[in-house]
């Protein structure tokens, strides 16, 4: 509410339009090179139309945003607001470097997705699903309904306020905190929280249970899983996840990694390990 105060009426209209369009941002996915660029362009269009009157300038701005775009979507509106404010600045100031727009946009993708996916996929969805499952399991239609409400109310509010926040904070702010060193602190805070949550998701959502067992002459067989848990609980999920990370960090294509895990799991199945 505070955030929307100092914004002019026309800018408000534009930001609301961006907010609404942003819902479709992940509608299309243009493969591994552009990802959600089309959706981003569609969302940011109102800003481009508003600040550039000249068709060449508009074309230039649109082309600028045909590059890879992918951020947790209800957090990504922050970037959209920010880009809007930078496009505005670019349209006003002669010596503004338009490349900085894409640079900043791109540099924010990692931290924002990390924190966004952790919070929305990892916390909010899990809580909402927890509530939903226990109601639905008893056949109550309240299950799915509450699930949707618990998830979407904070989600949509976030989407809305971040649109305005990105715009009002603006690029000068971002540059300032970069220079003063505070950006490091912010990134560190976001990454810390993100990594913590991803660690917790690894433990709760990556699942591995071996059914291997050692036969005992007289008595029931001994489950290997019990002993692996005694060594370290969730060791295999942790190792698999770290392994995937290691491969990705060695620039192995994500599809190969996916395939690898698939093959691994099925092989283990065929071998009777799981």
């Amino acid at each position, binding site marked *: 509410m505070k955030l929307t105060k100092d914004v002019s009426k026309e800018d408000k209209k534009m930001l609301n339009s961006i907010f609404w369009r942003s819902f479709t941002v992940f509608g299309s996915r243009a493969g591994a090179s552009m*990802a959600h660029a089309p959706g981003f362009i569609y969302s940011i269009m109102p800003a481009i139309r508003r600040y550039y009157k000249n068709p060449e300038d508009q074309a230039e701005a649109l082309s600028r945003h*045909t590059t890879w775009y992918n951020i947790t979507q209800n957090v990504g509106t922050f970037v959209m607001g920010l880009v809007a404010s930078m496009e505005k600045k670019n349209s006003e100031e002669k010596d503004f470097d338009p490349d900085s727009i894409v640079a900043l946009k791109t540099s924010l993708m990692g931290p924002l997705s990390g924190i966004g996916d952790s919070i929305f996929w990892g916390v909010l969805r899990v809580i909402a699903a927890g509530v939903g499952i226990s109601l639905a399991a008893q056949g109550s239609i309240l*299950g799915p309904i509450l699930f949707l409400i618990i998830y979407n109310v904070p989600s949509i509010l976030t989407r809305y306020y971040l649109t305005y926040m990105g715009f009002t904070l603006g690029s000068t702010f971002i540059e300032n905190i970069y220079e003063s060193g505070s950006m490091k602190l912010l990134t560190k805070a976001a990454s810390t929280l993100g990594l*913590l949550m991803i660690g917790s998701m690894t433990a709760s959502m990556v699942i591995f249970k071996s059914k291997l067992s050692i036969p005992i002459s007289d008595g029931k067989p001994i489950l290997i899983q019990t002993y692996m848990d005694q060594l370290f609980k969730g060791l295999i999920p942790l190792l698999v996840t770290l392994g995937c990370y290691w491969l990705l960090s060695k620039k192995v294509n994500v*599809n190969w990694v996916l395939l690898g895990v698939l093959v691994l799991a099925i092989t283990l199945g065929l071998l009777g390990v799981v």
Partner: protein
Amino acid sequence: MLKVALLAALTVFICYGGNWLFGQTMIERPLVVGMVTGFIMGDLHTGIIMGASLEAIFMGAVDIGGALSAEPVTATVLATTFSIIMNVNQKAALALAVPIGVFAAFISMFLKNVVMNIFVPIINKQARENNQKGLTFTHFFMWFLNYFIFSLVTFFGVLEGAQPVQALIKEIPDNLMAGLSATGGLLPAVGFAILMRMLWSKELSPYYFLGFVMVAYLNLPSIAVAVIGVIIVILNAYRDRQLLQIENNQKKVSVVNTEDSLANSEDKEEEDFFE
């Protein structure tokens, strides 16, 4: 059966396409998809109950950085439909859902990441020409095309799958089935690895393991981990800010004292040791 197949495909289109066209509002999750399928197939109660079971099974099926371990919509629609319409035993239907989900996930990723690449030059061209209408159209057309094609999987799945599925369940060796289920458990690792790539740094890596231990050994639910995380982050931020100020002050002082150039080179050595 044609009608059922059509309805099922429609459900997939609505839930999966709708989710991604309208702000990823999670209407693609089994809880919701189960309900919708149940409603459309005429047995709301069974739909809701199966949705609950499938939601638990697909809890780890997250879509992160575009990598997903199992596609929950197709899985839920097919499992629920088989169960309501074809009287497939409910447990068997649930067991089938995971391999279906893994299979559908691959198709979905193939479509989005490979096939849809054909639109790249078109978008570049439209942007260059400031063809805003065109860009808008392409955006929505890509959406329609993608989810339409994808829905066909379900369409043929139901049409052709009715009988074979029953047979399949009996024929698939147990081992293979177990392996397919295990993929559902292990694949989320890839999504998390993608996120880790974005955030990982040697200095912060301990927090990843902290989060892991908090769940594995203290059994904390995610909300508690998040709250503790925020607490840690805030406390650290205050400390970091204090240190930042000290360091900034020091930098200003060192401008005056010139022998610092020497100092820095020494610091380097030390650092190397710790890396």
